[in-house]
């Protein structure tokens, strides 16, 4: 399509209204991208920018009219109010991401190198949680971790645990829920990266008398770095904004920033405050993405999505 066969073919075979066709051809990419472009512009970019600008506006409480003042005070105010929740979110999302990376690297490695003809089956197994609704998955974890649930119940019955021992409403439960829910987001990019490693490079390392550990640390690990980074982004960013796990599995004292944002928009109608906190979340995501693009090239990350 890029280089149409010119006059010798088209001119002879179909000599009809060349002018109109050429105009259509010139417009083709724009016409094809028009519906999606309009949709994304109107329902993604414009609202996003509008919301972010809200955090820099000053609103008149009485009239509700807002003017752009470029005051960053909203950020300072929100951060001083909710820095505890923000720190907590970073802790929980970070812990869950690290757990996921550690858990899923070996299995991604195993499927990529030893999966053989069953690769698709194992990948489906990694994706199995996605076949159950996210909220239901979290609710089921509430059941599993509950005081009289399938794990703690029998242990308490056998007096292996004190009766007042509980997991729910602790940070551990929140991290466990986050780690479970986002594990496929970690495992799949890792799998893609490891799968792509040329096995002959590994053979070459062994030919040069590399031990298994040094082959791993000097060949596999460096080649898996793009996947590690993609896995980190795809796990950490959504986990940071997640509040379902915390609301269902956590207690009242360990609220995450997502809950604060949700309450700001839906309960307190404090749009400026919610916008400022959303901007912080978005900034974290953007910093991660730009770091990725800088270090590893912007094209590669799309391959993991």
């Amino acid at each position: 399509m890029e280089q149409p066969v010119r006059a010798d073919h088209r001119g002879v075979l179909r000599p009809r209204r060349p002018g109109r066709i050429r105009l259509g051809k010139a417009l083709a990419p724009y016409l094809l991208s028009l519906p999606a472009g309009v949709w994304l512009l109107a329902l993604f970019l414009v609202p996003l920018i509008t919301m972010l600008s809200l955090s820099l506006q000053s609103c008149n409480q009485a009239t509700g009219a807002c003017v752009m003042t470029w005051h960053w005070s909203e950020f300072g105010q929100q951060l001083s109010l909710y820095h505890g929740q923000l720190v907590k979110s970073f802790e929980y999302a970070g812990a869950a991401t690290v757990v996921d990376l550690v858990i899923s690297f070996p299995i991604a490695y195993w499927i990529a190198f030893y999966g053989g003809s069953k690769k698709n089956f194992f990948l489906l197994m990694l994706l199995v949680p996605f076949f159950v609704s996210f909220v239901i998955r979290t609710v089921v974890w509430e059941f599993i971790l509950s005081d009289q649930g399938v794990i703690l119940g029998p242990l308490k019955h056998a007096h292996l645990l004190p009766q007042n021992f509980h997991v729910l409403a602790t940070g551990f439960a929140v991290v466990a829920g986050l780690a479970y829910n986002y594990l496929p987001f970690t495992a799949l990019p890792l799998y893609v990266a490891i799968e792509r490693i040329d096995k002959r490079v590994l053979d070459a390392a062994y030919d040069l008398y590399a031990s298994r550990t040094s082959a791993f640390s000097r060949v596999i690990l460096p080649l898996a770095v793009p996947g590690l980074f993609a896995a980190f982004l795809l796990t950490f960013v959504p986990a940071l904004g997640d509040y379902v796990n915390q609301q269902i599995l956590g207690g009242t004292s360990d609220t995450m920033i997502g809950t604060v944002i949700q309450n700001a928009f839906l309960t307190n109608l404090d749009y400026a405050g919610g916008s400022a906190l959303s901007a912080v979340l978005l900034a974290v995501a953007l910093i991660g993405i730009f770091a990725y693009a800088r270090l590893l090239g912007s094209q590669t990350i799309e391959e993991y999505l």
Partner: protein
Amino acid sequence: MTSVATRDRVRGPAASEPAVRRRRRPGRFLLPVYSWLIIAYLVFPIAVMILYSFNRTGPGLQQVSFSWNGFTTQFYRQWDNVPQLSSSFWLSIRLAITSAVLASIVGTLLALAMVRYRPPRFRGKAFIEQVIFLNIAAPEIVLGASLLGLFVTLNLARGFLTLVLAHVAFCIAYVTVTVRARMAGFDTSLEEAAQDLGASSLVTFRTITLPLILPGVLAGALMSFALSIDDFVTSNFVGGASVPFPVWVYGATRIGIPPQVFVFGTAIFAVGICCALVSIVMSRRQA
């Protein structure tokens, strides 16, 4: 397994060293066992869900109890007994189908443009690429909150329409990425051949392009369906009085969820797994 064989053959001298060989033996089962344990961990909550969908309820309340009270198929027979749950489920299905259809049409058109044209003829391609990426990477709560702001500003009543608008907005990017990936090896000479033989653009699209990209489009549509039916955050912001299934379940966790929730969860799981297995079998048959 072939890679192991080749490696041992290539390694030659190193592999024949007894010290290396003895060290490798016990570790050989470690990785598979570990991997199966992780798979068990991933499947375990689903097994619990299915099990508890057969659990009797405690005395009085019609809600799932944490302890096991005995086997019953009562809630499968009475799956339709919680009116709000059923209506939220059907709302989710309608929403997911509508979003998947719209997003796959719009997203596929964009993917076609992105695959075929480059900057001199397609200015702004890099910008669109950035937007798509930002859309996927941005935390969902930010998107949901910004859409709520938009709908409030426009004074658009929150309901099915706003849900569709929002869901399509986050599905388009995934469809575009999926279709684009499937089109990576797309042979444009087939289209040129059709045009050389006098086919109009429309006929070329219908008889050549569409059949070739259809697997990618279907994958994108399925992905949109899955994203939409599972979405909680955005729906919670823009749904208003229309309450899709995940939002309803979330609300119900405060007061105790009826066992039918697990029945619906099991049904969705069964249908999804069947679709996935069919697609694996089909792709194996093609290969």
